[in-house]
């Protein structure tokens, strides 16, 4: 299911783009993208993230923002945290692929504060949503308990007033147009009725598929 989401998301990334991949499902996207033509940015200070290292090539000082060991590809560059977030806030990163806990019907994202826990961690989530040119949210369509994650209004604290541009789940792909959520594609074998039944947000484009 997660692989389906990651594969679909990879197709939204255009050659030549600089892309920041968040943790969780977004990490899987790296398997499906054109590694020669997409440059991966990680906010802890690297542009040009390469594939995971083999067991004998792990460099303890070379990690991504999820603290996983990575490699750096030819043409990579290292920089400090302020420069890295300047790239993000300043609109120099083409796309961010992020996980989310909820997305509301205007495309607003909640992906930093976990229900029932004190708000003590934010990391780079707010900067990414605020500054990156194209925001692609990847998430399972419902929670483990079967509750819709596409909701009328986020019940969890939002990460930014700025909405996402795309939301990809295992059932469908939505585009945010203005302040409307538009269903643009159903996953293979999925019907509109299935999407309708698992979505609490109002959306447009019912006729697709």
């Amino acid at each position, binding site marked *: 299911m997660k692989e389906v989401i990651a594969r679909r998301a990879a197709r939204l990334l255009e050659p030549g783009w600089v892309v920041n991949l968040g943790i969780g499902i977004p990490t899987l996207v790296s398997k499906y993208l054109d590694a020669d033509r997409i440059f991966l940015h*990680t*906010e*802890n*200070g*690297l542009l040009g993230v390469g594939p995971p290292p083999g067991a004998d090539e792990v*460099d*303890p*000082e*070379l*990690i*991504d*923002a999820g*603290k996983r060991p990575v490699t*750096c590809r030819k043409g990579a560059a*290292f*920089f*400090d*945290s*302020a420069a*890295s*977030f*300047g790239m*993000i*806030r300043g609109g120099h990163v083409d796309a961010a692929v992020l996980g989310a806990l909820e997305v509301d019907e205007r495309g607003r994202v909640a992906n930093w*504060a*976990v229900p029932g*826990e*004190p*708000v*003590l*961690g*934010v*990391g*780079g*989530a*707010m*900067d990414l949503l*605020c*500054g990156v040119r194209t925001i692609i949210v990847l998430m399972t369509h419902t929670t483990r308990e079967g509750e819709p994650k596409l909701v009328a209004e986020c019940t969890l*604290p*939002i*990460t*930014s*007033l700025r909405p996402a541009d795309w939301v990809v789940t295992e059932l469908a792909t939505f585009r945010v147009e203005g302040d409307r959520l538009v269903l643009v594609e159903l996953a293979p074998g999925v019907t509109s009725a299935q999407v309708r039944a698992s979505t609490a947000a109002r959306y447009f484009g019912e006729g697709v598929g």
Partner: protein
Amino acid sequence: MLRAQDKLQDPAAAIRAVLFDGAKVMVGGFGLVGKPLTLVSALNESPFSGLTIVSNNLGEPGRYLGRTLKLGKIRRAVGSFFTSNPDAVRAHAEGRLEVELLPQGTLSEAIRAGGAGLGGFYTPTGVGTLLAQGREVRELGGRAYLFQEPITADVALIRAHRADRLGNLVYRATARNFNPLMATAAKKVVAEVDELVEVGELDPELVVTPHLFVDHLVLARERL
């Protein structure tokens, strides 16, 4: 050269030279990567407490800054991500740890601003969220921004890969992160390095932190 050579010190001596009870201390690193492990261990062995720690996060449970916390030395933490250490979450819940949470881009820029002598800046990050509470909002060119004050400290403990005896620093891979920023923003800066070379051996084109920012040098005894 005498002045330059004086910068190299034993970790415990360097900590004694710069720290005091209640000090505000910046500590470099993203998780343990780029963290000055030897200096944090020396800090943990020192008698100083009541510290304010400015660091992206408070490390791993019981290790390095996680140990500093367990030892009860930290009164207040300024950073972007404390949920990775359950001890920090508990200490906060029990009222033993005061926390100031900032988005990572705001944290890093506030340190940069502090080091560069600026009075703060306006950032679009966080507008309309829980972290905007109590902050000045200003509309500039039709967009809303939050005011962020600069962050400075009494002491910065940082890690670099290589230093010359003057204190010029070169970093390595993603261990750079907050270190060059913190080097500019504290009254006293101690840099822990893997390797010390003679003056003239570092390519000036590659120096990231010029020596005027660095007060003390310590050779790393603990590494990842």
